[in-house]
């Protein structure tokens, strides 16, 4: 067979397989147990009520990353960093030159700089793919509550046109609308304090996030977030993270009120010594 024909057949077969795989991911499973169809509210829109969680390692790093040792030697493999592939389209975060240098510094100084270490509010879109569940509660015609187990963070998405936020905040101000079966949420009014992951990816107060929640079937949401920040990036960029319904029996959000876990870290040096304190065992920090 001639080379060009061989090449063409291979190309055709590859694209056919790619299309077939994409179709399988989009359509409900047809072999064995079929995935349930998307439930609907009284107004015909998808019902996204329930408890959801992302899996994977986007919370560690939005880009491709190899496994590496964790920050504390004594924690060994139990707190090392797993590998993961990029959730950023194109695996590139288009930083301006000054910002790329700052991100590198953030990455190297993670322990002292990541707001997550101090149990600070996670901002958006990070709250969505933190390794903790979150719950969506709403009725048609009303605001949409998204409550995150991490640090009791939450946000209420006001359904309607975007509004000028009166003040900056950690979680921003979110407004939403339906476009077909997609819940589109626009958020602005952020301060510059949050990160996007544990790799030091950051933003300014000019951040604007547009999220799209599209149900694939009853237990899966195709979640995309487009990040725009003209002070930090050269163009908008988009991440895609599948979100799965928590199907545990009696699933519910518990408390992760982590302020209690960081008080000694943040205020311990100001406490009145009694002479009866239990000394901490030494631990060696590998980072930076």
């Amino acid at each position, binding site marked *: 067979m001639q080379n060009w024909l061989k090449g063409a057949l291979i190309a055709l077969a590859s694209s056919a397989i790619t299309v077939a795989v994409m179709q399988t991911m989009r359509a409900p499973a047809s072999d064995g147990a079929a995935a349930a169809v998307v439930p609907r509210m009284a107004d015909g829109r998808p*019902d996204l009520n329930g408890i959801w969680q992302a899996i994977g390692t986007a919370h560690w790093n939005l880009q491709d990353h190899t496994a590496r040792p964790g920050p504390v030697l004594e924690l060994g493999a139990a707190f090392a960093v797993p590998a993961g592939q990029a959730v950023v389209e194109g695996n590139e975060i288009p930083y301006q030159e000054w910002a790329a240098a700052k991100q590198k510094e953030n990455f190297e100084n993670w322990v002292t700089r990541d707001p997550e270490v101090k149990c600070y509010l996670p901002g958006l879109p990070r709250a969505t793919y933190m390794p903790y569940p979150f719950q969506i*509660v709403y009725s048609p015609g009303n605001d949409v509550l998204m409550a995150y187990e991490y640090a009791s963070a939450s946000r209420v998405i006001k359904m309607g046109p975007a509004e000028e936020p009166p003040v900056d905040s950690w979680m921003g101000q979110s407004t939403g609308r339906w476009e077909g079966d997609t819940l589109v949420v626009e958020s602005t009014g952020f301060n510059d304090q949050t990160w996007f992951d544990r790799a030091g990816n950051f933003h300014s107060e000019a951040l604007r996030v547009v999220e799209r929640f599209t149900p694939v079937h009853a237990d899966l949401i195709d979640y995309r977030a487009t990040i725009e920040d003209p002070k930090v990036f050269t163009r908008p960029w988009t991440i895609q993270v599948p979100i799965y319904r928590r199907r545990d029996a009696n699933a519910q959000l518990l408390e992760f009120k982590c302020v209690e876990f960081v008080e000694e870290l943040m205020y311990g040096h100001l406490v*009145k010594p009694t002479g009866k304190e239990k000394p901490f065992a030494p631990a060696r920090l590998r980072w930076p």
Partner: protein
Amino acid sequence: MRAPTLRGRGVRRRGPQRAWFARWGALQPDLLIVVLLAAAVSACQGPGTNAQEGWTPPRTPDGQPDLQGIWTNYTATPFEVPDASDNPRLYAGDPDGRGRGTGPSSFLNDVTDRKLDKGRSLVVDPPNGRVPIMAWAEEHRTARLLSIQDHYANHTPWERCITRGVPGGIFPAGYGSGYQILQGPGYVAILYEMIHEARIIPTDGRPHVGSSIRLWNGDSRGRWEGDTLVVDITNYNDKGNIATNAAAQRVRAIPQSEGLHVVERFTRVDENTINYEVTIEDPKVFTAPWRVAIPLKREPDHKIFEYACHEGNLAIPNTLSAGRARDKAR
């Protein structure tokens, strides 16, 4: 009939309520007397459990009574009936009047233009309006409040920016008093403006979580009794305080034990009022159960702001560093 659309925010006039009453009063005096008698009878059955005559709350699409909206709890009613033995400065953490405490003692609404109700006390049971606190718990509270400069754990969970607790988070605080209720199928969610607490209460009859799971705000399970949402709360930890607001005065910083059991009742009695009642039982801390009643008023224009408490907490480091400076100076 008013339309059942209930947006969390947006301007709503309070006019229609008064106009309806005025029309009935002017044109139907005999019927008015009957209505008033019926209202008086139902009032005798206990506050807050009977809707205004002729009014039933609208329903959510899945058939729950609709409590949705933004509600506030501003009031000039004191928490307890005051007593000569009270020491308000101590309760605010400032025993010798030198301004050492955190937070003002006033919960009055002087910074807004609201017209406030003033009743006898928010505590409605025991009948004397005083919470039946065991002596050890008051001593524990006092010892903590006198030592807030020594350790962060001596502060209430509010100053620590952990939580205002349940039901403590609904006791009036003077600001940040927004409560947004949103409902979805099988759930009632209450977003407390302070400290951005989103309580999500299942109403599907599932049992409480296992007894080894302990929570600052307990584990809530709701059910509907007629149009009243009844919430049963167990599984508390022993690190919280039953009240953290200065306005609770003597009850502020009283500890909660793992035996704490709380039952709340939310009844929407008219378009603009939810009567909230809570019964608190903790046999290690109180000699008897006690009950608090707080009306919640609809305020769709109240903007709920982010209360990023921990992110901006200067109270704890400032109180502690002042304490170390004081120690050094001695």
